[in-house]
């Protein structure tokens, strides 16, 4: 299925979870936050599966003033 991650389309297997996505981005265990279709995706929901067409944002803290 296709999901949109940080604005880019991505082909992923069915029953794909946030945990798997973070692993594949090299962000497993890193301090990030996620949004699923413009709603906060709490860490407790990371084992839940995405649906086709889901729009996901993965953000982190960077330098800023």
């Amino acid at each position, binding site marked *: 299925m296709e999901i949109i991650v940080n604005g880019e389309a991505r082909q992923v297997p069915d029953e794909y979870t946030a945990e798997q996505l973070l692993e594949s981005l090299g962000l497993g265990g890193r*301090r990030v936050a996620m949004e699923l279709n413009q709603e906060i995706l709490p860490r407790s929901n990371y084992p839940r599966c995405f649906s086709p067409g889901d729009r996901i944002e993965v953000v982190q803290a960077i330098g800023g003033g």
Partner: protein
Amino acid sequence: MQNDPLVIAGVEYSSRLLVGTGKYKDLEETREAIEASGAEIVTVAIRRTNIGQNPGEPNLLEVISPEKYTILPNTAGCYTADDAVRTCCLARELLDGHDLVKLEVLGDEKTLYPDVTATLEAAELLVKDGFKVMVYTSDDPILAKRLEELGCVAVMPLAAPIGSGLGICNPYNIRLILENAKVPILVDAGVGTASDASIAMELGCEGVLMNTAIAAAQKPVLMASAMKKAIEAGREAYLAGRMPRKLYASASSPIDGTFFK
């Protein structure tokens, strides 16, 4: 100075200098400058992770640890209230429920002046959602009051445009804001060098938030140390109360007892 804490949302801080983490050469320089500044509240931006790029690189929060510093996520780059609220929600999730945020909703890329109507809108939404909002705004005394009335925990008027280093352009407006304020007023943006920070503190501001003045100095770590001293000096001068300005001289040595005519 002992027992003169900055109090924001009921939490006491001994440093009145708040610093940003943008524009540094690298994370090591960021870390050293922030250490030298003595700041306890440190701002960060929230951005998309770079897909597939340098996944092994340390994260800012591994260098500027939330255990050591109070992290103040900002909404820099947001031009609408909705984007600012979304950013704050992501930041709260990122920081395990930490709800102190720096709200800024910009109106124009050239001046980075705040869009004050959108700022008011976002502040109201965020306060209702339980955020403790430190809000960047223009140096308008009426707006500052409105933001305080909405429940913002600190109001942070600009001294000059973000990153301009022009210093305190309108000290009279800052004074008007201070006169009516019941929450801490901090100058945010526009400071260029140490004396600017001292002037803000001498006016009676509770603190100063800066980034570029340190990061864009020739020697950022040394400037961070200078700013720390400038903030402390300005605060002490404010508390000490300056002498009145006079047009004519007034001798410091007594006239009586001179042995010459």
